[in-house]
């Protein structure tokens, strides 16, 4: 008789989501990201797709799933811009991979961990976008405004916490 043995945190706390949540939540995030800055221009500082990418990656704790989720969300985001398709796709692929890898190692349910993790991921996202634009695409006039990036990371971290709390309820029961 085969018995299931839990040998790691990944196997112990790996979560899954229904297909509807997997498809509709990223779509809703991209939709809101595209729609909200029109009536509320200040909300352009948000990056809801990145919040969703990080959430799914750390919840599934599967680097391949995290990479693919980040790539798909980033590519869809790129398709709505005038940038070459792949800029956000590459950045979010890396972030999805790292988030899933971190989720295996540490307890990402803790509030403090989530704050630090989100803040760090948003700064890393800005750095990756800067490198892709500057080095791969050769946009010499792209600069990192560190104060703005810190503010963006802080604001997105504050927004990410309640979203994580809401999305925790969409996890499929084991």
């Amino acid at each position, binding site marked *: 008789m085969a018995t299931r043995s839990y040998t790691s945190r990944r196997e112990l706390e790996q979560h899954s989501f229904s297909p509807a949540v997997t498809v509709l939540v990223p779509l809703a995030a991209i939709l809101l990201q595209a729609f909200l800055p*029109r009536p509320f221009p200040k909300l352009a500082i948000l990056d809801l797709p990145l919040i969703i990418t990080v959430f799914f990656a750390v919840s599934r704790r599967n680097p391949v799933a995290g990479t693919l989720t980040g790539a798909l969300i980033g590519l*869809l985001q790129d398709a709505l811009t005038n940038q070459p398709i792949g800029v956000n796709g590459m950045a979010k692929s890396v972030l999805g991979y790292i988030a899933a890898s971190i989720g295996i190692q540490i307890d990402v349910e803790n509030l403090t961990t989530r704050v630090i993790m989100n803040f760090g991921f948003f700064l890393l996202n800005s750095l990756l976008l800067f490198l892709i634009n500057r080095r791969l695409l050769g946009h010499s006039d792209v600069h990192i405004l560190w104060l703005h990036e810190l503010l963006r990371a802080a604001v997105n971290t504050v927004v990410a916490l309640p979203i994580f709390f809401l999305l925790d309820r969409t996890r499929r029961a084991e």
Partner: protein
Amino acid sequence: MESFFTRFKNVLVLVAILLAQTIGLAVQVRRPVESGTPDGASVTLIRYWAVSTITPLERLFHGFGYNIRYAWSNYIDLRHTRQQNHELQEQISRLRLEQAALSEDAIQGHRLQALLDFQQHYVATTVAAQVIGTSGNDLSRVLYIDKGSKDGLKSDQAVITPDGIIGKLRDVFPHTAQVLLINDQTSGAGVLLATTRIRAILRGSATGQIIINNLTPDSRIKPGDQVLTSGGDLVYPRGLAVGTIESIRPDPDHQPYTLIQLRPAANLNQLEEVLVITGTQATLPPEAQHDLAVGVATAQSQAAAKQLADQQAAEAAAKSAAQIVADHLPSLHDSDTPETTDAAPGGAPSNPGGVVPKPLPTVHPDRYTQGATPPAADLKPGAESTPVTPPQSPSSAPPPNATQPAPNKPHKSLSDSPQTTNPQP
């Protein structure tokens, strides 16, 4: 080998995905630009799928919000509407006067352009569209509007508002289109500084500012100067407002050029309705010609009214001056003719200009007094001068034998007649 792939499965998947996207980026960047299509066919297809997925939902949200706002603003929130209407009427009157002042110059300019065979492009047809969404990325400043190729839109058509230019169409899909804003880092436009008539190239920047960085320092360029489209880019018609110069400073990256930052005329952050210019023509549209004709007629009527008012004012001033003279100078009244009593009801004489002025009576007459000097025909050369008897009264005639010293003998006259005074110093 199998254990290698199993062990490094996660990293290999990440590397494969990154590699694929890097190749995709390289293909997009190296692709030669075809006319009318900003992206290759495959990229356009991906964008089309994404836009087709997102924009219907955006349109739904936008329609919902629009209807709520419409109902609120048109049926509920009507406070101050009457006052606003009054203010708008005043504004229309003021604009009509301004239009009249500019119409004749405009017509003269058109005449000169016709003489020079100058090709001007006027906005002929536009399509009004509503903004339904953005790119959602602050490195990509694009908007989505609810009109597309089915409505006659094409790539590279200019998008404006009544305040100024917004950008141009980039990707056009059947029912929606992507507007590239002028503050995007890939945007550009040919512009003209209104006061100095210097041509320049406007660019967007990564931080969302509009800059001009192809001009060398010029003391004539000052903050506050207006910037217009030059028409040289063949996208934006000539003469549309772009913005005003906000700051001028040396460009640290491109010396000796200056970095001129503009404040856009239109609020690029909160756009709801825009106009897409779908056609231009070399002559003014009929509506504009009619407006211009109305303006010219108004200007001519104003000029005629002003001329009439000036003429009446001049006549009134002349009448007033004559009346003042007539009142304060009694000698103006002819003593031989009786005072006319048929004055106008307002007190003005019937013919103030017809009175011949006469000098006042002399209080202390001398030989220079009018009438004291005999006519030149009565004088004899070498005749002895006689003391002059001044007239006793202003009304009495001068004595016929009164003589003046002969002009050829002034010294004798001086010695013989001490009463006479020497007119020469």
